[in-house]
């Protein structure tokens, strides 16, 4: 199954789930007096769901738009360097989870250093200096200039969450 068709199917599924929620679950928690109003919280979603499901069927059953472009597309997909992309995405997830526990400065510094190394940076010394300066100065900007609290150090240094 081509990528285009799978995505069309994905869209159809989402529309159906959305429609099911709009038609069958939202109204259940509606207080009785609200039912007197001509418009319910579920009215607009119901319209979107109907249009979405119709369009989903059209997308799934229509011919793929660019029949010739397909093969080129697949070749392009093989040429991509997937490994660094997946590693960096994994690192982003790790960053999101570790940002609070280990603090902004350590997590940012290591994200920038490891990220550059994954992409093939060789000059480690420069990298460490630049990442260090960046982590510190951005923390300073956000915390002191913009006034948004960012915990700089790990929990055991700054005490409690």
């Amino acid at each position, binding site marked *: 199954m081509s990528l285009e068709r799978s995505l069309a199917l994905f869209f159809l599924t989402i529309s159906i789930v959305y429609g099911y929620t709009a038609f069958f679950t939202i109204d259940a928690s509606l207080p009785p007096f609200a039912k007197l109003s001509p418009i319910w*919280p579920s009215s607009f979603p119901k319209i979107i769901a109907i249009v*979405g499901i119709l*369009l989903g069927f059209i997308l799934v059953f229509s011919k793929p738009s660019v029949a010739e472009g397909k093969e080129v*597309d697949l070749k392009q997909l093989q040429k991509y360097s997937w490994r*660094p992309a997946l590693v960096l*995405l994994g690192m982003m997830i790790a960053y999101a989870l570790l940002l609070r526990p280990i603090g902004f400065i350590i997590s940012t510094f290591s994200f920038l250093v490891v990220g550059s190394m994954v992409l093939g940076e060789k000059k480690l010394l420069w990298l460490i200096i630049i990442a260090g300066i960046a982590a510190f100065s951005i923390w300073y900007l*956000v915390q002191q200039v913009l006034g*948004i609290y960012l915990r700089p150090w790990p929990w055991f240094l700054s005490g409690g969450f």
Partner: protein
Amino acid sequence: MLEGLLIGLSTALSFKMLLMVVGGCLIGTFIGMLPGLGPMSIIAIMIPVAISVGDPTAALILLAGVYYGAIFGGSTSSILINAPGVAGTVATSFDGYPMARAGKAGKALTVAAIASFCGGTVGAILLMGFAPALASVALLFHSAEYFALMVVGLSAIAAFAGNGQVSKALAMTLMGLMLATIGESALFNMPRFTYGVMNLQSGIGFITLAMAMFALPEAIFLILDPSRSKSQSEQQNEIKDLRISKKEAKTIAPVIGRQSVLGFLIGVLPGAGATIASFLGYAVERNLSTKDDQKEFGNGSIKGLAAPETANNAACTGSFVPLLTLGIPGSGTTAILLGALVALNVTPGPRLMVDQPEIFWSVIVSMYIGNIVLLILNLPLIPYIAKILTVPRTYLIPFILFFTLMGVYIGQNNAVELLILIVLGILATIFRMASYPLAPLLIGFILGPMLENNFSRSVQLYDGVGFLWERPMTGALLIIAVFLVLLPSLRLWISNWKEKRKFVADGD
């Protein structure tokens, strides 16, 4: 109008506002020059900064400065290394890069700077005339017409999406609308579509979605495809000799004149932005030229460089017309601007010019100032600014990813939002691989609440959906919307049918 201009001048000429214009233009030019980073990502990254500025006028001026700065910067990287940072400047590279290859990089940059300056300035003058007129018409509109107008806007965006893309763009718009209904809405304080997840109660953050749709996929594509970020090793020639001759000035003057107006008008249309304006401008000028001139197109014609540069800047300005007068964004970029304004408690629309004229007029004045700043910036400083093209991708990409994460974190102060960002970003990348356009999703998301509120208000007033046919204006607009959506498939169907007949005729 004069009164308005004076209000704008007195606001925009304060030190803080000038700082915003200059800062925005500089940041926009710098980041716009980085290959692979478009204006939408840059603006998305700048939004948390703009919101923390706090003052809506200053924020809009800053973001507008970033916007045209990015288009300016994009043309520089198109000309110097044939790597357009922005879709709107792809046409610039057709003739700009051959000129640079022929050792006329300096001249190409000058032509681009002058063309952009004229396009932007003429655009701002037209905006000044157009917007108040349109706004006074829009003041007569009722919520039913607003609802219909937004439907027209959304379908126009889908209809302009290109051949075979209409249903995909519609699907993305609908997904944006669906995402917009998640959480509590303004009219009904009751959580919808949260599926028991507490973090969805307040809905998906608009910055999160903007980052997930634009900044993150662009960064992922930069990693996936190393050839996207060419660096300076390609740039062999020194930038020198910035001057253009009188004869050349005479050649490009009519081109600039025509394309400023054409570009502006295209920019006003919803869905057709700087990209379409620049390609159309290039094609129109090529058709208008003499046979001899036509041969030069693609090999370093200064007409071919001036046309798209003028058109895309004029279109950028034109796209502010529907945003400021109707509150309906016509492009992904203006949708992001609208989101930022809503976050600052300003609702753009026809009332804006009556209630908060200083916002409208100071944005216009800031456009004049911004264009002058960019001209000054681009002409003498360009050889130095172009050095930014030497930033290696091993540094560039981790920093882009980090700024994406940071922007979302600062806005929401919530680590779960970061995970939502990553999941949506991966989905957006996959959709982009199958050439689904992403801008309609964001536009749908931003227009969603307004669409629903106007619809609900009309239903309440008319106690049903009677307004759809009882108000002729509403009905007419909705018919236009349906027509817009069906038009491309109708055209395709007719051309298919003709093709088949021709094929049969050939077969005989």
